[in-house]
């Protein structure tokens, strides 16, 4: 993995690389079994006691459940110093967790995208902030 020391997510509690691999920060409700992403986007089953919600990391890899390619520059408040247009957005399914998560597709030839293909979680450099840190977002790339 590249040097992550000087990188910071634009908004905290979404993407983690402290374990040595990039993974999404989810929460699981142990009462109703539902996974949330982001953690605060609660989606309990009606009648759930809402007890025992714990923070978990999603697996690094999942399968591409849908995708779309954008042909316009992504509008503010999105901010990046890279030329990412046309850019892909993928919906990646984590089967055991029964959740699909959306994210920008990076490091992948968009012409090769196919439903069902294996994708892995990574990060995308956005811009350098005033503290000279590289600000990043989560992203998905095809497994090579």
């Amino acid at each position, binding site marked *: 993995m590249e040097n992550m020391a000087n990188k910071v997510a634009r908004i905290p509690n979404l993407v983690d690389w402290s374990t040595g691999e990039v993974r999404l920060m989810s929460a699981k409700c142990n009462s109703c079994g539902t996974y949330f992403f982001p953690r605060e*986007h609660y989606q309990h089953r009606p009648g759930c006691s809402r007890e025992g919600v714990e923070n978990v990391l999603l697996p690094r890899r999942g399968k591409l459940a*849908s995708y779309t390619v*954008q042909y316009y520059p992504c509008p503010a*408040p999105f901010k990046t110093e890279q030329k*990412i247009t046309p850019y892909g957005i993928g919906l990646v399914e984590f089967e055991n967790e029964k959740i699909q998560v959306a*994210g920008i597709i990076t490091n992948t030839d968009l012409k090769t995208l196919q439903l069902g293909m294996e994708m892995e979680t990574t990060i995308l450099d956005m811009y350098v902030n005033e503290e000279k840190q590289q600000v990043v977002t989560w992203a998905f790339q095809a497994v090579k």
Partner: protein
Amino acid sequence: MRDVYIIGTGIHPWTGFSETVFADFAAVAVDGALKDANIEWRRIQAIMAGIFIYGGNAGHLSGQYLESIFGETGVPVVNVYNACATGSAAIRMAYNSVAAGETETALAFGADVSPKGFLTAKSDNAVQDRDVIRWKMGGMPNPIYWALECRKRMAKYGTTEEDLALVKVLMSEYGAKNPHARFKKTYSLEEVLKSVYVCDPLRLYEICPVSTGAAAVIVTADKELIAKADKPVKINATTMGSAIYGDPTIRISALSCPAVPEAPMLSESYSASRQAYEKAGVGPEDIDVLELPDNSSWHYLVYLETCGFCKEGEADKMLRDGETKIGGKLPVNPSGGFSSHGEALSAQALWQVIECANQLRGRCGERQVQGAKVAMAQTYGLMGNSGTTILSI
């Protein structure tokens, strides 16, 4: 609950970005509704106003601002926001107030001036406001959500690029015949298929932009007003629905969705439409004309299924077979739809109701559905919002 009728409607035609003050737009629609109903402003006993979220204090208290234009009378004024279903919420409150006997005659209106370009986040608080992360980190304007669902649909049911383009061809044909529509140019299948992808698989002409517009509806149970109105239209049901746990749709603002469905897609609209069928005592087979929210060509297809007009995966065939044309089994969006109007958030649901009322009153000229007796207006809204209104004459 007693019977409630629409006796007056008014529209400010849909336009693009405008410097005009939203309340002036609203006043045009309300003036039109008063004239149509042939009543004085003082007969309005409640004002249910759609909130114009980009309008600051004036937009949040849009009902008070409107009232000050026509003359303050001390009646209850309630301002409501339910995203694209805002107008549904307003007419539902007006209906409930009159049906319950709280008031005899009530006004529902919405007016919206489009911000330039994409809609975007309204706060900076990523923990509190579930709409922030998708804009700041996700790179996900609204049409992306529709494209993600559209791709799934194409894989699951074989919806083709031609099907998606055909929706625009049909909508542009009808929009050209509607004086209220913003876009009046007609397109051939080839022209739509040649338009650029905005969010592949959806093309430029297959998604609707944001617009400026206003719409107003006057409802009453006053027998004297009903008797003197020009073709009063009965409200059989006007309902609101929210989402159901386990709905597999990736909802606008969300960054995730369930992988294993436990509820119908677009469950908020499923809920609203089923409530309306039950209350009105009618089924999809009784609807003579339908206005559905074609924010994109995908919506046009999926809404036919969500609202029970065909089984899942069969909407494409309905479209190809011409069943959804004026003159077909179920005329859909004879107004030209959102495709020909664009979204004007707080006004659009009321505009859909007005098109339905106009169809039942035989006022639609070249786009008239002959002999329509029962009509349905169906909305769609962000974060699990939807409304259904069923009307009859």
